[in-house]
């Protein structure tokens, strides 16, 4: 459990909140690059950290992210014309460049310089690995650009999607490090999902359904190891990475792609679940990308034209009670991503953690909260930058590995947990 004030602290990310300030110290994913596919394309509404913004790509290919509303009468610039290096409000013609600077107020004499006095709040927007990243913190404290491996490998080796999740970011993220749910909720998918099946490691999973967990602090967050019995007294380890505040990377299976998530607050009751798959050494195959587009693995099918999952709370996630009863799916919901999201959304927009009853196997979640609380306090009270900003903390990998029984996995998988170009992931 958390006390109410702790729960409020971690789940509130709007302007002026402590956790909001901390989120604003990172580059965070804002849009897929494909959402702004060409110069002068239509602008896109973006809501992040409880701020309503508008993103656009100007005539010269520059990206902009700024206050959604025209400074004149408060009209949404989603209706704007994207033309000649700026967004022009269709109401009275006020025009803004990618920095939010007003560059034209047609009703005022140009010589008056009035437009120079108008500027919308804006944030940098940079493309990296098929994702447009923004930094919403103080302009004099811009961190190094993101170095996550999934955005630094060649484009044909990586695939990223995002989906709208109707819950606070924290309960979604906690689902990502809640390793003990896998043996229940996802048990039907290991041998059927095309992005998981066939790996030798699956057999360890299926033959030992009572893993023992070890949680170890890492420089950027946590290593969460799940150990199962392997041959000759050795242990099969699946090591998840969590990096503060909301990056997770799941242990790989065989030669399948490696995958993970970012959970980014839209507001306090909604978040974006970003899901990436990549392989450090090879291009993703057409079959793999096709499966990902079809909602397999950690991806979803969408309501056409949106980022809302096709199975969502308005249709009870298309729950199939017959499949649940027959054991084809444990919860009756199809697909790993929506199996997770359906249950996390069912907790309510912001779960009341004063009422929960955690148990020992929840230590990954408890430790993550402990580190978040520690980091946000140090950041707000003393200005100490939180973990996860340093690019070294971002160059990490999850791992699946067999180790001798007495060996700390942090030692045995030390090299495997560092992202290095041209080095294969540790996977079983």
């Amino acid at each position, binding site marked *: 459990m958390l006390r109410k004030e702790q729960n409020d602290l971690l789940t509130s990310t709007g302007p002026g909140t402590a956790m909001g300030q901390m989120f604003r110290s990172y580059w965070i994913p804002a849009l897929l690059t494909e959402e702004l596919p060409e110069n002068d394309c239509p602008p896109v509404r973006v809501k992040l950290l409880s701020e309503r913004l508008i993103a656009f790509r100007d005539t010269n290919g520059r990206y902009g992210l700024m206050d959604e509303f025209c400074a004149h009468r408060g009209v949404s610039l989603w209706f704007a014309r994207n033309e000649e290096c700026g967004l022009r409000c269709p109401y009275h013609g006020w025009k803004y460049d990618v920095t939010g600077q007003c560059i034209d107020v047609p009703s005022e004499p140009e010589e008056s310089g009035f437009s120079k006095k108008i500027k919308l709040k804006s944030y940098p927007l940079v493309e990296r690995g098929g994702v447009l990243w923004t930094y919403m913190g103080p302009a004099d404290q811009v961190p190094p650009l993101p170095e996550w491996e999934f955005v630094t490998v060649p484009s044909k080796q990586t695939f990223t999607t995002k989906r709208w999740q109707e819950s606070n970011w924290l309960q979604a993220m906690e689902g990502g490090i809640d390793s003990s749910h896998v043996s229940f909720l996802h048990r039907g998918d290991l041998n059927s999902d095309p992005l998981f099946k066939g790996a030798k490691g699956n057999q360890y999973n299926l033959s030992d359904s009572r893993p023992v967990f070890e949680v170890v602090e890492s420089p950027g967050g946590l290593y969460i190891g799940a150990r199962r019995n392997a041959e000759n007294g050795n242990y099969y380890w699946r090591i998840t990475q969590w990096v503060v505040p909301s990056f997770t990377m799941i242990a790989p299976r065989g030669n399948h792609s490696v995958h993970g998530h970012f959970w980014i607050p839209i507001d306090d009751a909604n978040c974006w679940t970003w899901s990436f798959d990549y392989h450090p050494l090879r291009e993703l195959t057409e079959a793999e990308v096709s499966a990902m587009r079809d909602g397999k693995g950690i991806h979803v099918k969408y309501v056409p034209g949106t980022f809302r999952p096709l199975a969502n709370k308005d249709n009870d996630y298309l729950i199939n009670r017959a499949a649940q009863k027959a054991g084809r799916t444990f919860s009756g919901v199809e697909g790993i991503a929506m199996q997770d999201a359906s249950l996390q959304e069912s907790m309510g927009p912001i779960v009341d953690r004063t009422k929960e009853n955690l148990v020992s196997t929840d*230590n990954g979640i408890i430790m993550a909260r402990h580190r978040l609380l520690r980091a946000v306090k140090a950041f707000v009270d003393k200005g100490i930058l939180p973990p996860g900003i340093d690019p070294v903390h971002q160059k990490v990998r999850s791992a699946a590995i067999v180790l001798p029984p007495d060996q700390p996995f942090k030692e045995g998988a030390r090299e495997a947990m560092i992202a290095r170009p041209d080095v294969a992931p540790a996977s079983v």
Partner: protein
Amino acid sequence: MSSAAEAAFRVQAPNSRPRAIKVVALDTAAEAVVRRLAAGSWKQATFFTAETFTRNLTDEVGAADLVVMVAGPGGHAEAATLIGKACSDRRIMTTALVVDARTASDEALSKTLSQLRPWSLMMVIADADSYIEDMLAALRA
């Protein structure tokens, strides 16, 4: 369906009864940590050295919902076997915490892990001992 408005209609009655959590220091490094914890205000946690816990092992384990074993890296945590076996026999959940692990050598950590792993159903290797306090609070101790 779940919405902010509906969340207000959650049943407010208590949904659990207190659990008895026994925290045992296995070595001298852990004793200092556990002694400090014992000075705090807890509802359902009680604190022991390995010696005091094993003196009444059957009774203590029999009255526990969870036994937390605390050790420092490289210490003498042999009591884990005795306590762990008693817990295993009675199907009592065990958690092991290795504290102050930030600067521990791999050898020291290996030694401790070899003593704790066979008897722990959950293990945490923490950089600082402040984690135990948060863990116990999270478990409603």
